[in-house]
């Protein structure tokens, strides 16, 4: 790594308005810099990052023929890319830039010692100049960006993202674990429409349910979108599929998908249901949370899309060695296919969108709430299925024990959320809202049923939600009481439930009897999302959801370039937010891939093959999976995939043979800084 022998260093000093100049005497520093050896010009500017500042920079560089540039300004975290892009426009290689931070590391922290701050700024510029002389031009490699996208998860977010990308012309592979699309939303009762009061009445911002025949069934809201996706020529839908392995980097991810057998030919099945009528095996339907029965060959629920049957291989007699051809005989389209088998599908995509959604929290059995111990304690998901007009109970709410309509229902909030014993104690955001919605829905169908909601706090954020809350209490007469229930006791004969709680606003402990108790459970990350996150080396937040790259400014990007996240996979949220994020993720992916070719940053590491001893320590240590083993004439060596390397330097420090070097951070370059810092004046 030889330094430039005849470097011509140009120095720019940014006054940054008062931020730097009110403490550091920039003119003084400018004068000092101009007499340093190798410096060909030294200029002050008020705001280097402004269009005028940048244009002045370009002029000066062209005029002077400088070969390296030093910019004394704010932290590189803000302006580095702007400046590098700018000097590239003059024809200089973008790596020939050294930034001296005289704001965050000088003027801001030594604000009460301006003389010393100025001296320090001079020193920082000297260090920068020394370093600038050691910089060498480097080119990043070209990375081809495959114009295909993988969307993991076929719920509302995944489907929306897939659709938008398909419309833009990208080929999308939509991988979904279940046999149908729609995720949780398709099974939940979510239709809320804006309402307008009759003329003459004050207009209020409010939701109202569409009542029959105005489409309030659960699938109706999402069905048009699912149909669009199923019909779209650019979308390749893989149902009953899971992602098993992902290797590679942005622009070129190699994905292995495992597609489980449906045992029904998707191309032939029309969804008529004749097979299910004759199938002899009866099971509890897990898609209805045990509220209904299904056969071994079944449609998950009435409005599942795509409308195809599927065979449960554990339940089917024939697949377990017994004689049975009932469905084969009943089907006139010859759809059942017992030769179906697992398939491994390989995909190569340029970007990945994770939309794996959520699962409802499963309360502890033998816990204090009697879940699965007492018949009439259910979770919100069972209630949602019941309220679905096309669901197992046809839209009425019934007690599981005797199928009677309950007269008194209790909702218990914060089951699984805000509990530091179970998780980080996060708030699941949507439960207050879904309880209000479901309470109103129950009252619409059963106006005589009393509802009481036990809460700790009510979080009614979002457009129209506070009004919705008022309406729930005022117009629908739902009782809200503050207190976290301590215990639920079952009356053995009637199977009614006694809820004991301290009603804190009453300051009394009460024991009240209900026919049905609904647990408002929290949203937890989907099963398998942790494994997926480790596969891609993504960070997860303390609540277990995938962490976005920047909490404020990058809500749909992840720590891995080319991998985006949207919907509940990133954290609990409602449908409109999921859709907004899905569109944002689609846009990000589209913008990324639209360039077709990208240049990887050259500030990365490379391995000197002759020195490499092939120990593989760098592979273990690298957080991005950049080093890979390659076979050479002298045996196994490591090589760094430049597109994956982020230049963190961990391997450089750990290599026992000192075979790895970081571009622009070689030992010589760093020593040049140290020397400048410690030199006597």
């Amino acid at each position, binding site marked *: 790594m030889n330094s430039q022998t005849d470097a011509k260093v140009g120095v720019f000093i940014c006054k940054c308005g008062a931020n730097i100049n009110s403490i550091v005497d920039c003119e003084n520093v400018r004068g000092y810099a101009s007499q340093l050896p190798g410096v060909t010009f030294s200029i002050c500017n008020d705001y280097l990052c402004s269009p005028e500042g940048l244009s002045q920079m370009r002029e000066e560089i062209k005029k002077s023929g400088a070969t390296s540039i030093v910019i004394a300004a704010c932290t590189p975290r803000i302006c580095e890319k702007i400046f590098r892009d700018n000097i590239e426009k003059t024809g200089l290689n973008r790596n020939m830039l050294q930034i001296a931070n005289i704001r965050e590391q000088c003027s801001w922290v030594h604000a009460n010692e301006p003389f010393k701050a100025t001296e320090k700024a001079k020193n920082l510029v000297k260090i920068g100049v020394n370093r600038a002389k050691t910089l060498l031009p480097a080119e990043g490699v070209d990375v081809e960006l495959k114009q295909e996208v993988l969307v993991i998860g076929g719920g509302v977010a995944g489907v929306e993202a897939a659709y938008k990308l398909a419309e833009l012309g990208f080929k999308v592979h939509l991988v979904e674990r279940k046999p149908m699309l729609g995720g949780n939303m398709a099974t939940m009762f979510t239709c809320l429409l804006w309402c307008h009061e009759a003329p003459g009445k004050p207009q209020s911002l409010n939701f109202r349910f569409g009542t029959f025949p105005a489409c309030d069934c659960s699938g109706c809201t999402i069905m048009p979108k699912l149909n669009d996706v199923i019909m779209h020529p650019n979308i390749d839908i893989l149902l009953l599929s899971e992602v098993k392995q992902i290797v590679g980097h942005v622009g070129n991810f190699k994905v292995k998908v495992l597609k489980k057998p449906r045992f029904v030919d998707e191309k032939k099945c029309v969804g008529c249901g004749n097979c299910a009528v004759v199938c002899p095996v009866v099971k509890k339907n897990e898609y209805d949370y045990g509220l209904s029965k299904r056969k071994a060959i079944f449609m998950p629920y009435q409005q599942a899309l795509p409308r195809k049957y599927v065979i449960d291989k554990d339940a089917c007699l024939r697949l377990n060695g017994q004689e049975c051809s009932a469905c084969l005989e009943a089907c006139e389209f010859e759809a059942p296919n017992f030769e179906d088998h697992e398939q491994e599908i390989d995909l190569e995509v340029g970007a990945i969108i994770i939309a794996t959604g959520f699962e409802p929290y499963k309360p502890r059995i033998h816990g*204090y709430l009697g879940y699965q111990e007492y018949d009439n304690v259910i979770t919100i998901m069972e209630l949602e299925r019941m309220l679905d007009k096309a669901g197992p109970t046809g839209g009425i709410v019934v007690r599981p024990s005797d199928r009677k309509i309950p007269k008194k229902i209790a909702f218990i909030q*914060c089951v699984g959320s*805000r*509990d*530091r*014993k179970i998780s980080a*104690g996060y708030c699941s955001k949507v439960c207050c809202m879904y309880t209000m919605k479901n309470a109103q829905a129950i009252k619409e169908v059963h106006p005589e049923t009393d509802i009481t909601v036990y809460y*700790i*706090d009510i979080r009614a954020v979002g457009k129209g939600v506070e009004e919705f809350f008022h309406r729930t209490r005022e117009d629908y007469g739902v009782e809200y009481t*503050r*207190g*976290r*229930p*301590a*215990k639920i006791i079952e009356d053995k004969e009637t199977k009614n439930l006694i809820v*004991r*709680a*301290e*009603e*804190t606003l009453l*300051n009394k*402990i009460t024991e009240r009897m209900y026919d049905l108790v609904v647990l408002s459970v929290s949203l937890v990350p989907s099963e398998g999302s942790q494994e997926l996150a480790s596969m891609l080396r993504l960070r997860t937040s303390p609540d277990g959801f995938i962490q976005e790259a920047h909490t404020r400014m990058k809500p749909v990007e992840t720590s891995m370039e080319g991998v985006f996240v949207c919907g509940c996979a990133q954290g609990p949220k409602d449908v409109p937010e999921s859709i907004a994020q899905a569109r944002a993720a689609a846009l990000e992916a589209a913008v990324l891939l639209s360039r077709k070719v990208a240049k990887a940053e050259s500030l990365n590491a490379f391995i000197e093959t002759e020195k490499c001893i092939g120990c593989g320590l760098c592979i273990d240590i690298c957080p991005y999976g950049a080093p890979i083993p390659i076979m050479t004439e002298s045996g196994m060596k490591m090589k760094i995939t430049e597109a994956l390397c982020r230049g963190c330097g961990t391997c450089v420090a750990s290599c026992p043979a000192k075979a790895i070097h970081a571009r622009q951070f070689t030992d010589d370059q760093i020593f040049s800084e140290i020397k400048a810092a410690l030199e006597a004046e």
Partner: protein
Amino acid sequence: MDISHARKEFIISEKERLLEEIPIVDEECNRDFIRAIIEMGGGDVQVCLQCGNCTGVCPVSLKTENKVRNIIKMCQMGLKERVLSTPWVCATCHRCYEHCPAGMNPAELIIALRHIVVRELGPPPFVVSISNNVANLGQAIEISDKILDLRKKIGLNEKPFDERYRSKAIMDIKTIMKATGYDKLIGIDLGD
């Protein structure tokens, strides 16, 4: 009809039944109290959400007026005088800790309050008498003649505490109590 007479009666008789609520003012709120509780190992009362779950499971709160949650709320506000002058009892059954979503242990809070009471207002009499027993007998309760006879009858050594080790054990206890200052704290005389 002259109803002014009736109105006067109503107001007069009403007044007798009125309880004057004296509003709590800033001077009563002592922020140091919260820190004192943390120092005594009672935990940080600020984490409490006031959800009321602890009160719902507490066997004592069910039977008395002073609910656990109220005590925690008073501690959160730093109402030291009020807390220390309100009677509170705790069976240390730890149900509150088991159920608390914020991870607090109200039983430990009550233990910390007890420490503060002992130091500022003095120990309750039963604490003194049992401490005396432990210091002088090595055990929390005295043995009656009836039980001494019973022990012999059922084939145990008459004395529950082996005489060969008893005096050393009691001396150990006294030495320990003197070293920690427990004797002075509780006000028991250990001789020398």
